[in-house]
């Protein structure tokens, strides 16, 4: 076995890339995060790991609400930019030309250009070292109509991208379908379990 040990590393691959939206001191702000995940299905919930000193965390603590916006590959440049500068210094929404709208929560700004927008209420904020784990309940989901196929969200139309740590930090697109889930493993199930 040729395995190499690296000490403790946060290596879950692939990582989605999202823009977290908050209102800080009355002004909308957005920052990209790759360390997020779904944390439950009923009610739908998610988590985002955010460093203590981030401007975004100020807005989350002020209002106990936030948004998660899934950018498409067309917004790659804007997403990367939002990770290079702080909302304490610049108005990222203006500089990126984001059209902002609001749904149920008046302190969870949503980006019209992002194909998917989630409005979230804070459920938990856990101290996990140099990050805070913010767990939010999704209260509404918005999707751009042309990203639907037969009324269902279509990942190939949404065109989300992933953040990858490799030789350098990179963004990768979502590629070809490898197989149908809860289906491609059925041949093994037939062999070992029957039917």
């Amino acid at each position: 076995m040729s395995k190499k040990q690296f000490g403790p590393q946060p290596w879950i691959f692939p990582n989605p890339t999202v823009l977290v939206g908050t209102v800080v001191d009355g002004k909308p702000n957005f920052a990209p995060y790759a360390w997020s995940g779904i944390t439950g299905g009923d009610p739908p919930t998610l988590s985002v790991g955010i460093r203590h000193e981030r401007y975004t965390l100020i807005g989350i603590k002020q209002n106990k609400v936030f948004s998660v916006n899934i950018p498409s590959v067309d917004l790659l440049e804007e997403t990367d930019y939002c990770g290079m500068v702080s909302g304490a210094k610049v108005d990222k929404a203006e500089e990126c030309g984001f059209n902002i709208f609001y749904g149920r929560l008046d302190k969870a700004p949503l980006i019209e250009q992002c194909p998917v927008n989630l409005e979230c209420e804070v459920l938990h904020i856990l101290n996990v070292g140099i990050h805070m784990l913010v767990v939010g309940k999704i209260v509404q989901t918005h999707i751009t109509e042309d990203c639907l196929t037969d009324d269902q969200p279509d990942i190939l139309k949404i065109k989300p991208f992933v953040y990858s740590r490799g030789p350098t930090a990179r963004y990768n697109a979502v590629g070809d379908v490898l197989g149908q889930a809860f289906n491609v493993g059925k041949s093994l199930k037939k062999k070992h379990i029957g039917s």
Partner: protein
Amino acid sequence: MNKKKLGPQPLLWPHPTVLVGSHVDGKPDFAAVAWTGVAASNPPAITIALQHHRYNLKGIYQNNTFSVNIPSEDLVKETDYCGLVSGADTDKVKDCNFRVFYGNLETAPLIEQCPINLELEVVHILNMGSHALVVGKVVETYISEDCLTGDRPDMIKIKPFAFGPFKYHAIGEAFADAFSIGKEIKSKSK
């Protein structure tokens, strides 16, 4: 604006696809999980969400340790199988021909064929309604040596895949460098 409301949906795409390992009643078991994410970097911590009745979760409660194994595209059939059947009914390790090894934690089974393996200790378990959210601290990381490029993990060699929705997707070629492509807007706004 052409937006449609779908009600609350867990629509955070793409989802990673991992095999969570635990020891249930002394025996290694693996479950396929898409609802996972990184929580923190120092100490490195991750989350996984499992429905309360899951067999694999029983092992996590029994030992307070578990593993996360990142399968490559070559293991898509075995991964799907691990999501179709319960460890209560069959020995998934045998059915999938997984070669199991152990590191520091004797109740966190690792799959040799998976290019990345994380050994974890439980730090929190939160009740999220339908799911239990397990927050784990990574105590050791293993990577198959042929997935390294210049001593760094290379996602193109690891070949992880994404779940969403009801299909597995490969990860495409890198199309931009992070903390770099946005510099154009940064220089414009200065």
